[in-house]
Each structure stands twice: as C-alpha cells, then as structure tokens.
C-alpha cells in the first residue's frame, strides 16, 4: 500500500509511468490538469526524459500523441471533456488509422459542471469512434487500467479512451503500485500505409475497424473491470458504471440483495448484460453522467423495465450520490436538516488587484457612450467579468469563440463588436479567428488580456508568452491598430483613451492589456 494518497488523476499518471509511458501530451482543463502536473513533478519521468510539456490545444496534443504512437512508443493524451470536442478530428481518425505504440486518450468529464460549460459524456465519443472505453471506479482501477489500456492498444492496434469524472479525478486514496515496465523502443507500424487515410486505404482500415467490434465486445465480456455480482432478489437488477457502483454499494451498506452488473469497460459486455436482463424483472441503470447505457437499453420506444435518469428514477442531470441511489431503490432515507435561508451564494471572484479588473473598468468606461455595444467573452479568469460589479461581457461559449463571434456579429451589422480573450485561449484557438478578421478587415476590437499564464486552471505555461504581438502582426494586424497598455489603476485614463480610439476605428484593431497574474507572481 502506498504511503502517499493519490488523486485519481495522479494514480492514472503513475500507472502510465509504470506501464512504460514515453510521452504525455495535454492542454490544461479541470478536472484533468493534475495528470500532466503529476508527470511534470515526477523525478522518474524527468530521469527517463518522458515528454511532459503542455501543448497549444487538445487537437495538437492528440496529434502529437498519435505521432509518438506511430513511432512505436507509448503515449497518453489528457484533456477535459470539452477538450475532446477540439481534439475530435484527430481522435476519430486515429481510430481509423489505429495505433502502433500504445495510445491512451484520457477525457475527464465534469458532471454537475463544477468548472465547465456543459456535462457532455465522453463515452459517446468512444462509441462514435468505435473504440473501447474504460471508466475506472476507483483510484486503484485508474492505476491498473493504464497498463491494461496500453497492452490492449498494442494488441488490437487501436487507441483506447479512458473516461474520468470529477469525483474520481479529484479524490485521493491509497493505492498499490506494480513494478515498472521498460519503455518501448521505436518500431515501424505493422503496415506503414495504414496511417495514410486516402479513401482507398481508409476504406480498408474502416472495414478492419468494423470487424474488430466483435473482438472488442468479447474483450469486454472477459474484462476484469466488468463484474457480475449474484443477488437473491431478482425483482430488480442494478447496472452501475464507473464510480456510480460505489454509491450503490454504500446505499445497501455492502449487502445488496439484487444482482449487480458493474461496468467499467465498453462496449457493453453482451453476455453479462444478457444474463442480468434475463434474470431480473426490472433494471436500474446508475451511471455518472449522461444516460449512455440507459439509452441503449431502453431503445427508441422506452422499455418500461429499464429505470434510471430517463425514467425519472434518478435526476436527469448532475452528479449522483449515495442518497440519490437510496431514493431510486426505495431505501429509507435519513432525515435532513432543511437548507437555511441565511445561507447565500458565494461565487468565485477575481483576486483583489487582478489585472482583469482594471481592463474591465477601462472597457466599461470606454463603452459608456455606446449602449449598442456588445462584448463577446471567452473562457478564463476574465469570464468572471460577466458577474457584478462588472457585468461586462455578453457571451462565453467555447475557447476562441470571442473573436469569431464578434466578427460574425459585426458581419450582421452589430457595432461596436468587441472580443475579450486571454493569452492562453488566444493561442489555443483564437488565432485562426483573428486571421479571418484580418482577411476581411472586420470592424471589431479584440482585447487580448495577457497575464503571461493560463491562470484559470492554476497557472500553467502559456505558450504564446512573449510572442503575442508578433503573432498578431504576423497574422496581418495593422501595426498602427495594434495597441498595448498596462491594466493598472494609475493608467486608467490613458487606457480608456486607447480603447475609445480603437473602438471608433471602423476596421480591425487588437489591444493587448498586459500585466502578470498575481497568483503566478506569488508562486515565484
């Protein structure tokens, strides 16, 4: 048993290191960030020279990992759930090329949206891409699965998706570790043509991928992660996936009278599933996230035997807990203290002295004469500008959307149209939108709030550090409409003036508001 307590993220990272990982690729995002941070802090990763630098975005990270797999080594790519939307092109097509060295894609989902825009469920992506998916139920399973995933990836020449959820990613436990395995040597792919997805080759690959589905299903049925627990009372059978099984165990204090099928490995284990469906009158599906299994079992007409989030037995959205499972199983519920009216929301705030505060104060004043103006926001600490006292932004959708949405709104005649975007978000996916605006000289003002870091997720390297204005100039922003100011109270009037001038200009301008994040300064 380990002396240390491992976060689910860390257990997976250590498992990957012990399984011969040669490269970790990632863009930060809660709750996945600590996987890469663990590897960056690991002395053994440093000694072995495991790749462990942040990537510009998830798509790039996915492709870098695929490149390492192509070269025969074991690679892991980590992201939060919405990162998989960004990486989706590489991800889905990597399923078609297949892997060479073990390739593990990790997506950390955030049910209840603790720090996310949605609660999309990554298991759908694995199903869509036709590859196996693992969903650990504990820190120990997260550790163990890394080695199995790499082995299966090499055996079946397929990438695997491993899905984490917030409560496992960010919960610690003691784990048992295994002896470390050596890293792979470089080696050629089995068939060097299969990475060239010309239609003729892609068709063959795709047929092979379809043919592998039966093997994947068989693997699921034999998997040590899918377990059938006998039960006497077959009026109900319970299917639980990932960490949801823990809530089921606790709801019944470890003595569940009903048969349970615990699933942590997809596609669904058909034989075990068929047995449960045959033995039990009704089936309760308990899954953290969207009703992925339940939808498949209910079918288009909504089989009334199948209970879960869609039937109303469990809430349609949000995280599960033991009490919700107790309620769904008709177990007695302990009484609860009713919520007190004295308890008020305490939302997160920008740190006192944060540079974003001064930028929003200047922007709000510059826009005082423009009641029609709209400010398209983006994702980062500066999104908190949507809350009082600033009430400064009208949108926050996905990384990079600020610039493209401002341009689209300007195309529709909305004026003034302003975008506010952080430095890390800009290099993640704002640069391409800016190129569109340059091409059309769109009448928008882009404010890049450059605090030298990826602050929102804890201060990771921002890859555009020291390069932001050169990137803008290189993309073709006119030098006379590329302005830089320091967001400080004493510069307020001058900053308002800069913003007024550029907002009045009927073409594209970029204003860089540059001052370092206080939290990164504090950590130095």
């Amino acid at each position, binding site marked *: 048993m380990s002396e240390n*307590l491992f976060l689910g993220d860390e257990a997976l990272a250590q498992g990957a290191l012990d399984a011969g990982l040669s490269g970790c690729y990632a863009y930060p995002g809660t709750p996945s*960030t600590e996987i890469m941070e663990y590897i960056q802090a690991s002395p053994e990763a440093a000694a072995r020279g495991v790749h462990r630098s942040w990537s510009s975005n998830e798509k790039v990270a996915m492709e870098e990992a695929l490149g390492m797999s192509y070269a025969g080594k074991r690679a892991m790519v980590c992201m939060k759930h919405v990162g998989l939307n960004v990486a989706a092109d590489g991800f889905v097509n990597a399923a078609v090329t297949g892997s060479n060295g073990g390739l593990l894609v990790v997506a950390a989902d955030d049910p209840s949206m*603790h*720090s996310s825009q949605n609660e999309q469920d990554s298991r759908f992506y694995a199903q869509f891409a036709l590859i196996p998916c693992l969903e650990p139920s504990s820190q120990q399973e997260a550790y163990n699965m890394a080695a199995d995933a790499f082995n299966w990836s090499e055996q079946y020449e397929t990438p695997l998706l491993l899905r984490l959820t917030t409560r496992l990613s960010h919960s610690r436990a003691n784990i048992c570790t295994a002896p470390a395995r050596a890293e792979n040597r470089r080696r050629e792919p089995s068939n060097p043509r299969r990475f060239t997805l010309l239609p003729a080759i892609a068709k063959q690959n795709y047929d092979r991928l379809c043919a592998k589905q039966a093997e994947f299903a068989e693997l699921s049925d034999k998997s040590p992660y899918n377990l059938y627990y006998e039960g006497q009372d077959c009026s109900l059978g319970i299917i639980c996936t990932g960490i949801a099984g823990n809530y089921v165990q*606790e709801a019944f204090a470890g003595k569940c009278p009903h048969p349970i099928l615990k699933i942590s490995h997809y596609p669904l284990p058909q034989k075990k599933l068929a047995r449960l469906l045959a033995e039990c009158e009704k089936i309760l599906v308990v899954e953290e996230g969207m009703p992925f299994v339940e939808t498949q079992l209910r079918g288009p007409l909504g089989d009334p035997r199948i209970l879960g989030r869609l039937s109303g037995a469990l809430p349609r959205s949000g995280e599960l807990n033991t009490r919700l499972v*107790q309620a769904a199983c008709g177990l007695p519920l302990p009484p609860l203290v009713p919520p007190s009216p004295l308890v008020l*929301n*305490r939302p997160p705030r920008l740190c006192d002295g944060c540079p974003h505060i001064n930028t929003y104060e200047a922007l709000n004043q510059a826009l005082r004469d423009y009641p029609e103006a709209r400010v398209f926001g983006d994702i980062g*600490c500066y999104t908190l500008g949507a809350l009082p006292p600033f009430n400064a932004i009208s949108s926050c959708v996905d990384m990079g959307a600020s610039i493209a949405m401002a341009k689209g709104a300007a195309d529709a005649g909305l004026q003034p149209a302003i975008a506010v975007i952080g430095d890390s978000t800009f290099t993640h996916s704002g640069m391409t939108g800016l190129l569109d605006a340059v091409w059309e000289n769109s009448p928008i003002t882009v404010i890049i709030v450059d605090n030298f870091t990826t602050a*929102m997720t804890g201060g990771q390297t921002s890859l555009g550090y020291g390069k932001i204005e050169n990137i803008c100039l290189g993309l073709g922003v006119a030098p006379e409409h590329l302005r830089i100011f320091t967001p400080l109270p004493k510069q307020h009037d001058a900053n308002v003036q800069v913003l007024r001038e550029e907002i009045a200009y009927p073409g594209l301008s970029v204003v860089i508001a540059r001052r370092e994040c206080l939290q990164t300064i504090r950590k130095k």
Partner: protein
Amino acid sequence: MKYDIVLAGVGGQGILTIAAIIGQAAVSHGLNVKQSEVHGMSQRGGSVVAHLRLGSAAIKSDLIAPGSADMVLAMEPMEALRNLEFLSPAGVLISNTTPVINIGNYPPLPELLSALRTHANNHLIDGDQMAKDLGSARSVNMVLLGAMAAYLTLPEETLTAAIRELFTRKGESVIASNLKAFAAGRAAVN
C-alpha cells in the same frame, strides 16, 4: 471503524491542508482514506468543501452522503451552515466563528451562530482571535485541526508528526507556531 468528515470554508482558508494532515496521519496509522477535494474555479474566494473519509475497511464512495457525516468542520460560519445537511444527528459540528464577508448581503453573524447552535453537539470557536493571540494569524486552520483532534480516534502524536512533515521545508519556527496553534485548539475542546 469509520469516520466521515466534511471540511468547509472559503477558498484560501486552508481546508486542504487540514485534510492532507489528517489523511497522512490516518495512512501512517494504517487506516484507509478517501479524500475528495475541490480544484479549479471555486478556489478564488468562493465556497469550498472537501470530504474526508477514514476507515479500517475499504471505503467505497468518494463523497459522504447528506445526513451521514460524523463531523462537519468549518473555517467560516456561513459555510458551516451551508454544509450542516451533511451532518448526522449524532455528529459533531466544529466551526470557526470569524466570518469572511466578501459578498454584499452577508447575513447577521448572531443569527448564523444561533442557527449553528441548534445542532446539539457543537463547538463554536473564534479561531482567528486565538491564532492572533498566539502571534500566528495564519495558523487558524491549525487551531481548528487541534479542536478536531479531540474527536478523531487518531493518536495526537501521529497528527503532530504529520504537521511536522508537512511544514518541514518551511523551517523550525513555522513548525513550532503551527504546533502551538494546534495545541491551543486542542485545549479549547474538552
């Protein structure tokens, strides 16, 4: 044996440090531990909560079910009240009484405290004042940890050893002031 603790506070008040110390002490005492934390957005002056579970048998869920915690430990009174629903009727509430007022319409403190006193087994402690009196205003969380020690079935030496270990890199004087704060909190609960 099983012991479930909900730790609550405002971002930056050091509840994860408390959790780390108890977690380490429990592991070195041979117990199983699960400790669920909050990372990300909620840390910037917002409400934070961590669930810490200790047990001689394997622990399943990472979260404590509402109505079942053995202890709620709060660094701040409104956060104590927010998390009271986790506490079992027989559980103990330990809360700091100094409020963190970073919202406009913060409720009157006396009302908050009397709402907390409706729970039978409570210890309301002015940890901020005690830490200030000791000359180590930043060790409020160690005062509260000391207060918890009366209820944790962990030997006090294992806890103080975990405090030493955690602050080793910060030097002897930091260790000493944290241990002093711990002892003061321990003495406040009898």
